[in-house]
């Protein structure tokens, strides 16, 4: 990945570059139900942040707030220094137009639990669609890059297959390639392996590890403790709309401080 600091070289102090993702006091309600109750989070460039928590704790909702698929009710989120969804002008917040929100989303890749590939397009077309349509790049260039990305996720021989002709693991790898084709500076993963048969989980995690080693900034909602321990730079444990505990994944997993973290880890380990 270009333009992203490699993990080994992050000698740059946070003060100079600022975190890639910075969320403060994020609140989100659906009707009268408050789902996020003041989330704070910082992820530095090149970091992999693993988001854990029981079902219904608001992990997906928070992830969707980061690329403005959900509007937040209070607090703010910055990605690479840019306020998401709003513009500050004269001490006031102005809602962004649909076009500006779309422009912000281009730099943020997202991978969904249920893949959400476009079923009427082949693997290659799934990957080329957005660069052609949104970034208005040249067809030949995009095609080449898309083929290289699919090759990289191990699907070089499946360019012409429709999603219905691919296994779950293969579909999810196409979805990752599709997000990468937009050259994002941040990747969001929402339980990317939860819908997969156990024997297919490994192939998707391998692609994600590869991506992490290349220095991609990633926020990963997952129940794969092994992945969090091995690849994660930070771990955030959420419950009931708040961050209960966070820190180095190896330390938190080995020695959770909070009762709820202990109870959750005991169940998934």
């Amino acid at each position, binding site marked *: 990945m270009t333009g992203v600091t490699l993990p080994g070289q992050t000698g740059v102090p946070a003060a100079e570059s600022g975190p890639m993702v910075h969320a403060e006091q994020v609140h989100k309600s659906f009707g009268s139900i408050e789902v996020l109750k003041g989330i704070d989070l910082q992820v530095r460039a090149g970091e992999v942040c693993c988001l854990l928590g029981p079902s219904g704790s608001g992990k997906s909702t928070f992830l969707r707030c980061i690329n403005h*698929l959900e509007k937040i009710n209070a607090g703010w989120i910055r990605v690479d220094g840019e306020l998401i969804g709003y513009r500050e002008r004269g001490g006031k917040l102005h809602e962004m137009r649909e076009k500006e929100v779309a422009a912000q989303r281009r730099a943020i890749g997202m991978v969904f639990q249920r893949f959400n590939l476009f079923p009427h397009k082949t693997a290659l077309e799934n990957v080329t669609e957005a660069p052609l349509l949104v970034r208005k790049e040249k067809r030949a260039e995009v095609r080449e890059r898309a083929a290289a990305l699919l090759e990289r996720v*191990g699907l070089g*021989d499946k360019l012409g297959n429709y999603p219905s002709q691919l296994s779950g693991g293969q579909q999810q790898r196409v979805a990752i390639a599709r997000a990468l084709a937009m050259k994002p500076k941040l990747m969001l993963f929402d339980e990317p392996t939860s819908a997969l048969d156990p024997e297919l989980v490994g192939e998707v995690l391998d692609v994600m590890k590869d991506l992490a080693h290349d220095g991609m900034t990633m926020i990963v909602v997952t129940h794969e403790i092994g992945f969090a321990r091995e690849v994660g730079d930070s771990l955030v444990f959420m419950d009931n709309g708040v961050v209960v505990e966070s820190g180095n994944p190896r330390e938190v997993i080995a020695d959770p401080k909070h009762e709820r973290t202990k109870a959750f880890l005991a169940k998934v380990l």
Partner: protein
Amino acid sequence: MSVDTDKSARARPEPIQAVPVRHPGRWVAVAVIGVLVAMFVHLLVTNQAFNWSFMIDNMFRPPIVAGVRGSIALLVTSMLIGIVLGVVIAIMRLSENPVLRGVSWAYTWFFRAVPRLVLAILFGNLGILWARIEFGLPFDRQIGALFGIQDFEARLFGFSAVDILTGFVAGMLALGLSEAAYMAEIIRAGIQSVDEGQTEAAQALGMNRGQILRRIVLPQAMRVIVPPTGNETIAMLKDTSLVAFVPVSAELFFQLRAVGSRTFQVFPMLVAATIWYLLLTSVLLAGQHYLERHFAKGTSRAGQAKARLRGMAVGGGGATGGGGGV
């Protein structure tokens, strides 16, 4: 079949040679249908009222062929209006703006409530309401009066309503506007049948609403939209005969009836109409078949099976793209 376990346990068993189930009922049905078909053919051949030679002589005469052309033109233009306007109304219906939703609802309500025959006659007589149709600043006279100008007119162009709103255009509008109400419902159902995850994935890639609709949602909705639209098109082909009441004369049924009543050979001309409509409908059905096949891309089971075979051929070398060493 003998079961000889110890010797031939792994050998391939003999193919089953059982007596198939008999279906006597089917044979009775075939016999009954056969007799009925024979009676019908006998009627067609022997009954003089059909007057086949007269029918064939008249079926392809220039005014009739012009009528066919008129009916097809009416079908194509009114379905185009119906589909384009239907998409707009469907999108309005799904909009977050309550005013647009309301307008869309009212439109659908009105044009589904009024019979097409009534609409056709109504549109043929709209000239009674307005002698001329003009485009320009709305309420120009009133605005002029407000500023003290007498007879202020700000009109760009206009035409006589009687010239335009009779005949073909009136029929086309009556059928097209009414069709839009039905098409809107079909298109709305199609759009709603597409998984929300598709829109989300497209949004996450930075596509805007128009791009998502055109490139992601509508192509998938087409699978749901095309079959009922085929139905609508066939129904519309038959409804083009209603414009005879506008009145429009360059239309198939009008022309056939005209020949029938002029020559006192009403029945052969009705049969001719039946045959013409059968022919045209068959063409439409063939078109629908190809459209459905086109929009089944990525979902057809036949396609899947073929690709699996291809995959097997490719995967023979052991490079099936399974993960691991990425």
